[in-house]
């Protein structure tokens, strides 16, 4: 997810993280198939702010990189 453009609506494909992180994200609505909007990323390669299920979530950069998404029809890794 770190490689997508700001302001794009992207679809989550999978979350390649540990079980706990996955579950926490799932509780907040980040599951395969859900559409999220990447709002901005923090300076200094910091966390990402995304909009999911209508509200703003901040996710650390390391974890964001593990969220696999599809932007505009391209697959990202």
């Amino acid at each position, binding site marked *: 997810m770190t490689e997508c453009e700001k302001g794009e609506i992207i679809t989550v494909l999978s979350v390649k993280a540990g079980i706990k992180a996955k579950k926490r994200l799932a509780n907040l609505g980040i599951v395969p198939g859900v559409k999220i909007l990447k709002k901005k990323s923090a300076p200094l390669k910091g*966390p990402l702010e995304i909009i999911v*299920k209508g509200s703003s*979530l*901040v996710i650390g950069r390391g974890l964001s990189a593990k969220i696999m998404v599809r932007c505009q029809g391209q697959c990202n890794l």
Partner: protein
Amino acid sequence: MKYQRRTSSHLPNKGKEKDKHKDSINIALAGNPNVGKSVIFNQLTGLSQTIGNWPGKTVEKMEGKLDFLGYHFNIVDLPGIYSLSTFTLEEIVSREFIVSEEVDLIINVIDATNLERNLFFTFQLLELNVPMILAMNQMDILHKRNIDLDFKKLEKIFKLPVLPVVAVHGLGVHQLLEKAIEICHPHLNYENSEFEIPDLSAILSFGKEVEIKIKDLIKSISVDRKSVVNSHYPPRFLAIKLLEDDEEINKIFENHESTSDIIQLADSFRKELEEIHGEDISTVISSEIYNNINKIVEQVLIIQSEKQTKKITLADKLDHLTTHSIWGYVILILVILGIYIFTFSIGDFLGGLFDEGYGIWSENIYSLYGENLLGVKILWDGGVGGLIGAVGGVLVYVIPFFLIIEILQDSGYLPRAAFLMDRVMHTVGIHGKSIIPMILGFGCNVPACAGCRIMETEREKKISIVLTSLIPCAAAMTVVMGLVGRYLGLSWVLFLFIINFSVILIVGRILNKTMPGTCTELIMEMHEYRMPNYNVILKQTWLRSKEFVFKALPIIIILGITLEILLIFNALEPVNLILSPISVIWLGLPTAVGIFLIYGILRKELTLVLLALFAENMGLTLVELLTPIQMITFSLVTMLYIPCFATIIIIAKQTNWKYALQISFLEISLALIIGGIVNWGFILFMNL
């Protein structure tokens, strides 16, 4: 799927030790963080609130009472959480409490502007089979966006009362209580009137393949349950949690031989389901829940105007500014300075008034009884003096401090700070949220270390506490500014800060490498900026101050009296002699100073206060008493060594005494080592 019926014999009258009142109702407020639960709680319970701890845990318990329409309500404000799994103590504590005998009714506070995510938690609560009311809060904001909710439909779908609320204006809050009375004490017309928990399988069901497994697990549980499993949780909840491999639930079944095979059963079911879906079980379940929620939300949201107004609001502009690559950090520094200035200006002013008053009274007392009478010394100087010192020297700073922190918290600024600082915090092994207690640490370490409870794991909490206690609090700053700042200039103050922060960085990195476990990633909800609600802020400030007064102040006063007594009997002289190898030779300070550093354990600014008094007694000014090197060393040691006693106690409460003592020992060592190095470094440098 038959839900367990709750008969009226299970309702209020359960013989709680606290309330033998027949007409008492016990309510739990549950919901996501930042939905307005506290606002509602404040409205209902006002000044009767108490903050305690859940027994045996380091989680805060907020309780309050209310008498309304002839009924006595006991209300517990549960921590804001997103689910009922076992990530955090808050979740465990909440779910255990809800199914315990002590809760008659849950009021699920939902942020109507954030329906989907909030309903996820609602679904979790529904599985606990406890009577519930849904309170849709922030309806005013929803209406501003030209959206409305179909309450009739919501009630039809959930088969539970759904009420609109605008908590900040107090609207709809009493209706919640009226509804609670209706549910818990139904009209006596009906002989066997009971609150029947509705059959919600229509919305709560998962896909067929999952439901089959759940049914099988329920069968196994129900068979063995009565004899062995002593749990308040409904069978379906247990089944789902077993499938999800929930630690705490597993423990219930692991303990007995006859039930441990249920765990194996759950394991095999889980593997099957994960193969079918190609995803881990939590993702499967969460996806299904969100699917169900989606269908509901489509039916109940009423969008009233076709126009999608894409106005950029003030909140948006502020958000952009405070997270900007440059301005964001500038603002952060300004905010921290602002906290200092606000706290100090009010504190100094009020503290001065107290000092004057005390001075005048002291003169009166001395002229009546004489200064040297033992009783006068212990009771007046020690006792009342300690009290005035605690109020005029500490409380007048702490209260404005709490006030401005509450404003920052309520307006929504603090997550932005975490957003900006996450990257930096990672270098010391914790994530961005830890900046929040550290910001607090600039004012006072006591609430700052208490604030470390927002960290999700023990590891991070512990690292956070150490680093937070190393932040120079306002008291330490008084010493630095009053000594180095005043006589040596601001550049030396900067020098001290650089050393202090380097220490924090280095300690953080070492802890990060040596403490087991890895750094958790930041996952945080960031809500829109909003105008702080002055009711909430005042009440929270009052509560926090009350907590401080009852917990920290007595310690300060008692220690003050003790030290005064020791001073009277000259018990402290020998201490000076014992300390002199360290204080005089290593640190290069005058002999008498050793004692002042010990007083500093009580309150850090005392080191300077006593130093000044000492100088006055000798007829010297501070400049004459201490050389510049000594001033620097003295200030540095004050900044770094042991956290003040009140802080130590808070740390012990948050973790345990062993850790608190370890931290104290660590910081004393650090202060002494670095102080000595600085001292000798300068001496060598001067002699080159």
